[in-house]
């Protein structure tokens, strides 16, 4: 099938089958490797992207479900040359160790900040609850999100 999605601000025509997980569409068809494959079960959060502003697990979200919707990936937050505010905050706090969970963390945080630009720490913790980090940089991640929320 082919489906249209608004990806990082641009309408794109994609050819994958409707039951293809959005994550595979992003990585394999569109070459956007920011969202990561972690567990494949919607339990770790590494694949998190935004759909119409809400954080979703792209590994368990079929393409057909997001047809015609607005998809934002970590590439949509900024570039290496021009990182966006959330990306800058993560860099400034050196929140990444291995970095595998970080795109998902950023997208989860982006969903929160879209809803509440100045969340308190409790709110941030609650919002990030679905995302796992194996390196243990949680405290830096928290600081990064707080920094982004303050700026």
């Amino acid at each position: 099938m082919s489906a249209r999605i608004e990806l990082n601000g641009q309408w794109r025509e994609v050819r994958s089958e409707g039951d293809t997980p959005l994550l595979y569409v992003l990585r394999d068809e569109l070459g956007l490797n920011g969202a990561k494959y972690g567990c494949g079960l919607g339990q770790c959060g590494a694949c998190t992207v935004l759909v119409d502003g809400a954080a979703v697990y792209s590994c368990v979200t079929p393409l057909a479900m997001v047809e015609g919707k607005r998809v934002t990936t970590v590439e949509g937050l900024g570039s290496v040359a021009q990182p966006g505010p959330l990306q800058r905050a993560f860099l400034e706090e050196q929140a990444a160790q291995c970095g595998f969970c970080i795109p998902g963390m950023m997208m989860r945080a982006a969903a929160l900040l879209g809803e509440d630009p100045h969340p308190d720490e409790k709110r941030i913790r609650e919002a990030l609850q679905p995302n796992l980090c194996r390196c243990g940089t949680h405290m830096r991640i928290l600081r990064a999100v707080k920094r982004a929320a303050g700026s």
Partner: protein
Amino acid sequence: MNAGAARNILAAVASLALAASCATNETDALPKLDAPPRPVSFSPPLVERGAKLAAIGDCRGCHTAQGGRAFAGGRALETPFGTIYATNITPDTKTGIGLWSEAAFRRAMHEGVDRGGHHLYPAFPYDRFTLASDEDIRAIYAYLMTRPPVPARHPPNRLSFPFNVRSFIGVWKALYFHPGRWRDDPSRDARWNRGGELAEGLGHCGSCHSPRNALGAERRDRHFDGGDAEGWHAYAIGATSQSPLAWTEDAMRGYLRDGWQARHGVARGPMASVTRELAHADEGDLAAIAHYIVSGMGHAQERGAGEANAGSTNAAGERLYRDACAQCHDGDEPLPFGGLALARSIGVAGESPRNLVNVILYGLPAAGDRTAPIMPGYAGAMSDEQVIALARYLRSRFSDRPPWQDLASVVGKAREDGERIARAPAGGAGLDPALWGAKR
């Protein structure tokens, strides 16, 4: 009952409450103990029995706040009449029940009166606990009084008039509360009677699984016909059960103990809290409860063949099922690795779409400390229209029941209630983000 009739009744009962407040005087205080009973004064077997019985009562479920200390209270119970905070039932002398005698504790359980003689709100289900035997209550008292005392005060209740007037509870009790112990049915065997005593009494199954009237009292004429609790539906578990698959005693016992059963599915919402506790119940008692419940459960209705294809008219729902759900729910892997075949799901065949919608939106959270099925939620990815189309499709494809009429409002309510209805089972301290390295 419509809202107008309910308001009229409310007004009538409210005036009755004020007029009758002298007639419903609160009871005498029972003397305070000088000091809490010493833990060594209770025999270990009695304490152990109490632990297993407290699990059946799910005392911990209500009397523990998210992330709080066990039994220290503070958990908010949302009712249609306002918010009630669970009390501290640890043996702390100032904020708990440390100075309550066994007689005072038993009176609270049997009569819904605190040590000081004040009526207790029936959110504490003494209308059910009144059936519990003195012996069982003695064991629970021993268990609670040997827990670590935790000083903790709960916030004041936030209730609307007339429910915020304590003497009103006296009127409520006069209308709806029938104190008295469980009476064995001599035509039934001991196991059935023990199961009944526990399921109807301490286990207070009917508190959720029966509908309530406008004043929050259980409808005894519709016992086990299904009810609503904390954003979830408690399915009918009596003669009117809609289960598409007949329950056996073994299946029921396994479900109650594990929180899921391979052929029936997964306990969610408040029932997940109940089953977490039931894992610690006495096996014999659990088997008795299963025996009692299953013996009263209606036969599953055969699925009608004629309407099986009705869902094909709903292309959007069919596509969502095929693309998002079928891989697990139509696969070869059994629970907990695969998804439940939805033709066996009470979520699809049941009398209310609420739980199905909750699970589509918020999934099944990982249990954390034991093996159980999981499911990702689709609240972010799916629009309301998609959720409605999917639920409609599942209903027509996998059950022979009539379409749900109120899907749009149910989806709206589930969105409004948000993930808090789906978060880890109550008292699941390990899953509370507020505990992760947080400063108190």
